[in-house]
């Protein structure tokens, strides 16, 4: 027979062990990000030192180099392209996708379920399979190295996922509210915009964040269909090998700006992300 105090002691030991183990996991998750930030803040001699230095005099030289003079290429243009393309494709994907998702959830027709599933399955295709045809297509209509090309591609990639996930969210809200609004004289568009959309706000937030992250992080297609004018941050970073492996600090500094905004977003908006990440399969 264990007494109550023994149970409490056991429990707290288990809690401490669990917390300790969880801290180790968090350390492993954060370690590469820590390396990224410290490398960006190190002087060149510290970056190449052996053994690696853990205490060092932080300097902003790498940030200055990266953003003010480095390589004659202006990183800020790449950042601007990334922001513009991410914002436009996210708005388009969530805007168009929410309409389609609502229609598929509320006005089912024969085969609408198959259509929804077919739309989802396009998301499983490896992007690399698209590089050849998309490149030739965009080249033939003069869209190579334009913002529009990437906006279109990311919108399409995200649409399939937005439609599938939001369709589940719409199906979850009771239809009675919308019927009542129809009786009150709302048009169908008003019902969609004023009743249904506000009710799936968590779904909109989750799909918008994940669409934005996808567009922001996407590298392969951006690398193929942009060269200079519309190239995004991942394309800039992939040029590292061209720096002959010496500009570590500068690239880490840019990498910090590529990762930080997304980190801040996800730290605060984690609810419903799982449902989006698993295409609605796990809630």
């Amino acid at each position: 027979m264990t007494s109550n105090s023994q149970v409490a002691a056991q429990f707290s030991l288990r809690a401490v062990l669990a917390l300790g183990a969880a801290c180790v996991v968090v350390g492993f998750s954060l370690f590469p990000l820590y390396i990224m930030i410290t490398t960006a803040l190190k002087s060149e001699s510290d970056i190449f030192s052996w053994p690696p230095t853990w205490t060092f005099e932080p300097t902003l030289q790498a940030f200055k180099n990266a953003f003010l003079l480095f390589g004659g290429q202006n990183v800020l243009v790449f950042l601007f392209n990334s922001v513009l393309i991410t914002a436009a494709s996210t708005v388009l994907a969530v805007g168009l996708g929410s309409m389609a998702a609502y229609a598929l959830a509320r006005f089912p027709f024969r085969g609408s379920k198959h259509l929804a599933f077919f739309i989802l399955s396009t998301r499983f295709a490896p992007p690399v399979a698209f590089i050849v045809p998309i490149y030739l297509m965009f080249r033939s209509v003069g869209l190579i190295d334009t913002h529009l090309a990437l906006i279109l591609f990311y919108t399409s990639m995200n649409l399939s996922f937005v439609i599938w996930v939001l369709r589940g969210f719409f199906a979850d809200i009771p239809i009675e509210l919308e019927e009542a609004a129809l009786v009150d004289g709302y048009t169908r568009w008003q019902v969609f915009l004023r009743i249904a959309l506000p009710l799936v706000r968590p779904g909109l937030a989750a799909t918008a964040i994940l669409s934005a992250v996808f567009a922001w992080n996407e590298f392969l297609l951006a690398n193929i269909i942009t060269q200079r004018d519309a190239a995004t941050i991942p394309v800039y970073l992939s040029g590292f090998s061209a720096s002959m492996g010496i500009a570590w600090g500068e690239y880490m500094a840019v990498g910090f700006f590529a990762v930080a905004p997304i980190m801040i977003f996800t730290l605060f908006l984690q609810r419903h992300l799982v449902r989006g990440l698993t295409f609605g399969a796990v809630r």
Partner: protein
Amino acid sequence: MKYFREKRRIAFAMISPSILVIVAINIFPILFAVYISLHLWSFGRGVPRFAGFLNYEELYYDGRFGDAVLTSAKFVFFAVLLEFVVGFALAFLFNVKVRGMATLRQIAVLPIMVMPIVAGLVWFYMFNENFGVINWLITLLGSEKVGFLTDLDVALFSIVLADAWQWTPFVMLVMFAALQSLPEYVYEAAKMDGLNAWQTFWRVTIPMLRPSIMIVILLRIVDSFKMIELVFMMTQGGPAGRTEVLPWYLYVTGFQALDLGFAAAMAVSMLILVTIFTQLFLSRVGIGNDNK
């Protein structure tokens, strides 16, 4: 009658813009890839010539393609295995109800959102043979320095490790959410039936988690199959082709060797492979059915 027609009109207006975009940017390129793959088609070497299944025939006899398939299979197998086993265990760890655990969990999953190119850049630095921190750690443990990205037998596993850093938290997050959604009464019933913790785990928890387990494995297989960023940043397919996964080989064929017809044949083969695989997998799990 008018009512139904109005409904159909609205549904059409709402769906068609999305369908239009998806058909133009998603479906058409696939058909176009099939068309390209039936031609001898390369940059700057005159007009494409129809060649039937020549590219596919070549693909069949191409040893490098076979190697890339094997490398991809190896990468997917080890990455998903590692990510699943560790992620699954971590889900139970983060499910322990203690104050502060939720915050730790939210920080632990941050790697999921890191730009893959940046992940590749940082791990490239950490794996460096001359000044990388990982080599420093293993020399502390008394080992010799290892050429993590240059050793023929090690390079692929270095990429697996970097991939696992990013995606193990994903498995953890999904399995954690699945654990949370298990109803409490099942456990009460198990307790009343006198099952011990071990039995409860195998006979109650695992069967109830099965759909989520299948989904997370499917998503990881499909996603790790398309991984190219880590290879791009860390090894460029080397050393001696040991990390040349299919996406990298396709990329090199299309945009360095400029053999578009051959690259398209590879693309079509990949699409067929993924489609068959996901359809088989999904028909067994039924992801298409549980979403109403």
